[in-house]
């Protein structure tokens, strides 16, 4: 499927695009990059950033944009701003830009209520459609959810969603239950979170035969949008039309809440694209171009977006309250303190840690200044990444395209949320993006965060967005494919290296696998990987080596227990990581043993400056 993107609302400029300034207005920081045509190719030349200015005293997202661009002006010597205006097109070699483009994820979350008839069928489908579109589902109401009618009505009355998605019934089936739910909603007179006179957007995506009755019951009371049934027949889901409607209403509704957004639209030479949609474009492009299965992640301040392409099928989920600043406290709440602490290689009392996390939540633009603060943020990031992938795995079944085919037998299995498409053994590449991954002081920190959070199996390549510019390139690719590709290949994608991770468990120090690495220059490195060991072998970005691994009998590298494999492995700025810690990854439960294990692993890969580990 293609990534839903807003329809162009104004024509893109016709003059040649030689100088481009692009911003991403994140929930925390506004990042600007300058792209210039150098000879025949486009290069990213300067970047600037500034806090996103949704807070007082500015309360105008464009202030942050202008501040970030002003930084580029200072660094590049190019005059881009004329007061609060962007000079476009270029007037001469050092004045103006040819186009300004932007993505935005400011605006907070989208809160939705969804309804179905059978809770674990249409109710679950509606939930997955909403979640997949980036919403926080505040409740799932269904005819059989165990609540009495008046309890359902009371619940609808007390909730203040941004939007409701109604589903229920297969096309041509009984209309009674879905009409009943419409009656409950009508009686409850639900009101949106914002605006007293604003009609609550309500998407009906249920039995098409009930559309006339639903229109009659709800047409006056809500801003009703009718779309295709998300479950036209029992064994087929059709989530895309409902999800696209959610997406449209999200852009019209939630993003409009971000102060100054209307001005931003005026400033930009192309439609503002939601950040996840722009990143999705890039992720899908990588997978298609290189014919591989990938998982991509964009971990931001408020949300973590996970993308996957398996066997050509694209999925995207947005974990709305997993992030590193605004949502950092929610990572603690969801993961639990113990899960965060397990990654911290020193002792810190619970009270201090909890207070620090809350202080980051209330002052989201701050950055770690000391090494222990950095390590705590990296620990939290591991958990945010892990939880977001669990979320993605649970929903990937429903997001794989316009339609999803299921057999009748699968239908009964989906009570367990269906079978996930994410197969870590078939995964070729993990792509990381977002502040904590792109701006980690050492690239190996990004690599280990992703390895620890995702626990890749077998042989997996890892890469990271160099300075966080995937959103910018995503929107750029919609107006100039060549410019986006040039910059992506040369300046954006940084290959970290390859992780080789045997599946199985063993006692620390016991043999896990024997390996033979043949380097491009003919050099051969033979060795033994022990359980509990992590080994980092230098292999440059442009190099490819061959690795033959013979695991011990209870260990699997994808070909079966004890079966050897030979693979080409790609290098990167970090290199080849042999991870003998076993899968699933188990950390010692004893505090001292865990700290010792973390210290050993972190030192093995030179994760942090040595004196402080």
């Amino acid at each position, binding site marked *: 499927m293609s990534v839903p993107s807003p329809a162009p609302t104004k024509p893109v400029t016709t003059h040649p695009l030689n100088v481009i300034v692009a911003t991403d207005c994140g929930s925390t920081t506004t990042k600007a990059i300058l792209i210039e045509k150098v000879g025949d190719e486009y290069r990213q030349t300067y970047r600037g950033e500034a806090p996103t200015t949704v807070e007082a005293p500015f309360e105008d997202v464009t202030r942050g944009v202008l*501040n970030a661009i002003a930084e580029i002006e200072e660094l590049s010597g190019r005059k881009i701003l004329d007061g609060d205006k962007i000079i476009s097109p270029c007037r001469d070699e050092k004045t103006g830009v040819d186009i300004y483009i932007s993505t935005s994820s400011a605006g907070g979350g989208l809160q939705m209520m969804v309804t179905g008839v059978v809770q674990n069928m249409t109710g679950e489908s509606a939930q997955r459609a909403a979640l997949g579109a980036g919403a926080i589902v505040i409740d799932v109401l269904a005819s059989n959810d165990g609540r009495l009618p008046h309890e359902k009505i009371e619940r609808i009355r007390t909730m203040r969603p941004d939007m409701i998605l109604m589903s229920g019934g297969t096309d041509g089936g009984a209309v009674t239950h879905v009409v009943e739910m419409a*009656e409950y909603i009508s009686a409850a007179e639900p009101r949106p979170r914002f605006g007293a006179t604003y009609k609550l957007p309500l998407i009906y995506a249920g039995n098409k035969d009930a559309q006339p009755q639903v229109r009659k019951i709800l047409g006056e009371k809500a801003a009703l949008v009718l779309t295709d049934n998300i479950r036209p027949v029992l064994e087929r889901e059709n989530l895309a039309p409902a999800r696209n409607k959610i997406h449209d209403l999200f852009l019209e509704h939630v993003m409009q809440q971000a102060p100054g957004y209307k001005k931003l639209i005026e400033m930009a030479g192309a439609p503002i694209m939601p950040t996840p949609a722009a990143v999705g474009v890039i992720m899908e492009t990588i997978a298609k171009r290189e014919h591989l299965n990938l998982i991509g992640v964009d971990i931001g301040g408020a949300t973590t977006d996970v993308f996957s392409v398996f066997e050509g099928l694209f999925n995207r989920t947005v974990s709305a309250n997993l992030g590193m600043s*605004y949502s950092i406290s929610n990572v603690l*709440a969801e993961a639990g303190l113990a899960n965060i602490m397990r990654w911290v290689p020193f002792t810190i009392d619970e009270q201090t840690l909890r207070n620090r996390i*809350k202080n980051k939540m209330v002052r989201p633009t701050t*950055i770690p200044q000391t090494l222990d603060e950095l390590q705590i943020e990296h620990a939290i990031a591991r958990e945010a990444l892990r939880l977001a992938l669990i979320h993605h795995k649970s929903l990937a079944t429903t997001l794989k395209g316009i339609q999803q085919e299921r057999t009748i037998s699968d239908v009964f299995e989906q009570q367990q949320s269906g079978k996930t498409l994410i197969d870590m053994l078939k995964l070729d590449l993990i792509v990381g993006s977002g502040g904590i991954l792109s701006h980690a002081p050492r690239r190996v920190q990004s690599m280990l965060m992703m390895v620890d959070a995702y626990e890749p199996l077998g042989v997996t390549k890892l890469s990271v967005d160099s300075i966080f510019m995937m959103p910018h390139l995503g929107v750029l690719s919609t107006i100039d494919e060549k410019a986006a590709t040039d910059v992506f290949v040369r300046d954006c994608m940084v290959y970290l290296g390859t992780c080789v991770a045997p599946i199985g468990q063993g006692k620390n120090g016991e043999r896990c696998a024997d390996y033979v690495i043949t380097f491009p220059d003919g050099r051969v490195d033979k060795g033994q990987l022990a359980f509990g060991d992590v080994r980092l072998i230098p292999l440059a970005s442009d190099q490819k080596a061959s690795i033959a691994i013979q695991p011990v009998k209870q260990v699997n590298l994808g070909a079966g227990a004890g079966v050897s494999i030979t693979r080409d492995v790609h290098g990167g700025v970090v290199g080849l990581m042999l991870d003998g810690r076993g899968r699933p990854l188990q950390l010692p439960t004893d505090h001292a043993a865990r700290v010792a294990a973390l210290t050993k692993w972190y030192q093995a890969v030179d994760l942090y*400056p040595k004196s402080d580990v």
Partner: protein
Amino acid sequence: MAHSYTPGLTVTEHTTVRRRRMLSLPGSVLVTTGEVVRANQAVARAELPGKVYPLNLANQLGVAPDEIHEYLIKKAGDPVRKDEVLAENKPLIKWLKTEVRSPITGVVESASTVTGQVLLREPPRVLELLGYVDGRIVEVIPQQGVVVETDCSLVQGIFGIGGETGGEIVIAVTSPDEALTPAHLTADMKAKVVVGGSFISSDALARAKEIGVACVVIGGIHDKDLRALLGYDLGVAITGTEQVGFTLILTEGFGSIPMAGKTFALLSAHAGQQASISGATQIRAGVIRPEIIIPKQADALGDHGIAAMPQREGIRIGDQVRIIRDPLFGKIGEVSSLPADLQKIPTESEVRVMEVRFADGSKAVIPRTNIELIEGS
């Protein structure tokens, strides 16, 4: 590179604030533009539709849904009293007769021939919207609400819980670095806005609740005490609807942090005066910070010049700043240098920094994103 700094919280003796007071559903506005209103005065009113009670008549009468109209005694729109007969069947033998009585007093909202359901609705409940601050109505939005303007002193907090309240300001401690203990809290603080110093402990929170204070304004609190107070771990800073017995406003953050001297001095100067309080916090787009608004006395509500808040263009040498991240969290100093080049900090990140000079003459290099301007000076 003067652009990377975090705007601070406003603490100012004299400003003008406008507060938009909106009904959650359309209703009627009770005041007119130019009218002087009090904080506890209703400025608009709406009727919240009553609770709905569904009754499945088709099931109860044992008839098909599309037949229910034949059995209904009360039609849609009719008023109905509790236990009044709503519908009945007409059997040949009288003792087989089934009557369905109304469980509530209200009106018949609708009767569906698709589901066989009748919806009954209780009478509406009147919702009154208060003025929130003593001030003057500067705008009326028909059917929706008003904008109240007030000439006031304003203190913004960093984080709060609980909704709008108000009361007389009482200073419970002697200095901004003194913690608020149960011993500081006395019965005469009931319904008042109690200003503490650096920290409030869980037992002092319990005491505040027991006394029935309207609001506690404090430098800091431990997260674990907040969790105990709320009964859950707060994930996202969107608050304002909590009901813990009082409104709580943190001026500095989490932990034990002396209240900024300026904040404490301002609140102390207004001890005994009435304040309007909101604990609502939303640290997302369209940020909302908790606030303490102290309107100028009634005789000062006349028209006189209001000093407009200057729009800050960026940070400058000499500005007062608060450090908002460990290891010097909470310290206040003055900007002494703004180097343009990126500098490597202990995490190995290369960031823009500033040099801050503290009162004792010591200096520290701090990432620019880790300070906040002390606004409103």
